[in-house]
């Protein structure tokens, strides 16, 4: 009898605990869910022949973390991503499985636009090219980074040439060069984002690219209006609101990252969000870590 009572107490205790227990685990800070990884070498030794699975697991874990940040951003909650930790995890993953395409794709997608780790990303892409010798996308990504972010057109041409050879489309290098010449940088970035969007199956990554596309379309709209203003008035608009006042722009487009667009001293379109998640915005509180 005592045993049954004791068992009943334990069972009731379990039922009372299980829901708050589950909720507390679900609501752990995102950064805790991301966690950390040991160095690649010991991990490689420990994982043995399962290192390819571990590498994929690491990518999935970082992807979930980053995806949840994108979702939070959609809900107007500004969080600062753990970019250094994410990048280290990607590096570890690339050492565990240097052929893993997801590693390079995610690195390109996440550490260029917002974090501006262009040289580090290109180093990782160079590392990947030594293994994925058939994949034209890695030199294509590196070429884009060199041209768009670094303005290093010599390196870009070399990467695009390699991408063209690997893709079996010799015209690719010429077309890319012509495209860069004829269109503006923003137009080129839009084309690149559409390419990246087509080459993923992950809905959160697609959502991320939607953010960027909206931002770039807004920038492109303002840039074109600034050009029209110059042609019409022979001078650059002092403020972005002058575009609206002149009747050339119905309203200043919204920045999907939550910031406000403005023109810098050179007349270049900028945003207070720096077109990045967690970019500081006037009057908005920045949460260094998600502790809500």
């Amino acid at each position, binding site marked *: 009898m005592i045993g049954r009572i004791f068992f009943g107490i334990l069972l009731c205790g379990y039922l009372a605990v299980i829901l708050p227990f589950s909720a507390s685990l679900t609501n752990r800070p995102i950064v805790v869910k991301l966690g950390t990884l040991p160095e690649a*070498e010991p991990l490689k030794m420990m994982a043995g*022949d399962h290192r*390819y699975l571990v590498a994929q697991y690491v990518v999935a874990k970082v992807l979930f973390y980053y995806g949840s940040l994108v979702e939070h951003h959609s809900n107007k909650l500004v969080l600062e991503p753990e970019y250094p930790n994410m990048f280290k995890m990607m590096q570890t993953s690339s050492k565990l499985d240097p052929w893993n395409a997801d590693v390079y794709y995610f690195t390109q997608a996440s550490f260029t636009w917002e974090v501006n780790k262009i040289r580090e990303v290109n180093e990782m892409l160079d590392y990947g090219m030594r293994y*994925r010798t058939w994949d034209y996308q890695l030199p294509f990504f590196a070429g884009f980074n060199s041209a768009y972010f670094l303005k290093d057109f010599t390196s870009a041409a070399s990467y695009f040439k390699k991408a063209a050879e690997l893709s079996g489309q010799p015209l690719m290098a010429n077309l890319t060069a012509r495209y860069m010449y004829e269109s503006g940088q923003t137009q080129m970035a839009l084309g690149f984002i559409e390419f990246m969007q087509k080459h993923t*199956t*992950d809905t959160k990554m697609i959502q991320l690219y939607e953010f960027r596309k909206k931002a770039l379309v807004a920038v492109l709209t303002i840039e074109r209006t600034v050009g029209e203003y110059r042609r019409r008035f022979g001078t650059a608009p002092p403020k972005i609101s002058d575009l609206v006042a002149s009747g050339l722009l119905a309203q200043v487009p919204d920045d999907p990252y939550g910031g406000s667009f403005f023109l810098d001293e050179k007349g270049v379109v900028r945003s207070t969000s720096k077109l990045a998640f967690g970019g500081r915005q006037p009057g908005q509180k920045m949460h260094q870590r998600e502790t809500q």
Partner: protein
Amino acid sequence: MSRFENFFRLSVASLVRDRLLHLLFVLAVLSLFLIPAFSLFSMRQVQELAVTLSLSALSFLLLVLTVLTGASSIWRDVERRYTFSVLGLPVSRADFVLGKFFAIALLLAVVAVVLAAGSFVAIKIAVSVYPADIPVNWLNFAVAVCFDYLKYVLLLSLAFVFSAVSTSFYLPFLGAIAIFMAGSASQEVYEFVTGSAGKDFAPLARSVVKLVYYVLPNFAAFDLKPQAIYALPLVPGTLLLTLLYFVCYTGIMLSLAVWSFSRRELS
């Protein structure tokens, strides 16, 4: 029918009746159903992830089967005093050990073939959802499964060595796991120590590491997962050397197991 064949058949019959193995096998087959769904976690390489998951599931199941059956087979017969009645007859202990070994090796082969066939279907389903740029190289996949199987047969021979000398289940069980982990990492450690990073190590430490490297089984050589996952070319010379390494190492371990068990006092 030879005495070896008798022991072999008896051991096979015993394994087929083992309910724990039934359970493991059913769980492994069920895990195959999850592969197409789990493969969608990849952004760009659904097919590659399906192959990775299939090979990892196969490898894990073979490891569990090898360690459990290899560690328990001789020990269980000694515990049940089955060996006293059987080995009291004019039969060779070598036949007893080899009969059990080849029965378990056959079980592993059947499991590998069945799971590889199941993986084939699972990968096909995953690929039908998101076709890859480079199709699966099924020859590489089959070779990777074969070498994975050989790896666990080699581990089985080591478990038999421990089993032949041990009076407990735990030594062969934990010993096989420890050897498996060490043998899986030995190539990495060897390359690390003999590389530029190893210059900081004392010469004696480097020599010890090299010695341990040559004594331990090298399981890394049997890992052909990248070739199967990414359709990388296989190197026939390396495969042949690995095959010869397998034959020599397994043969030595089996000889040691038979020798140890023949000298063991069972009374």
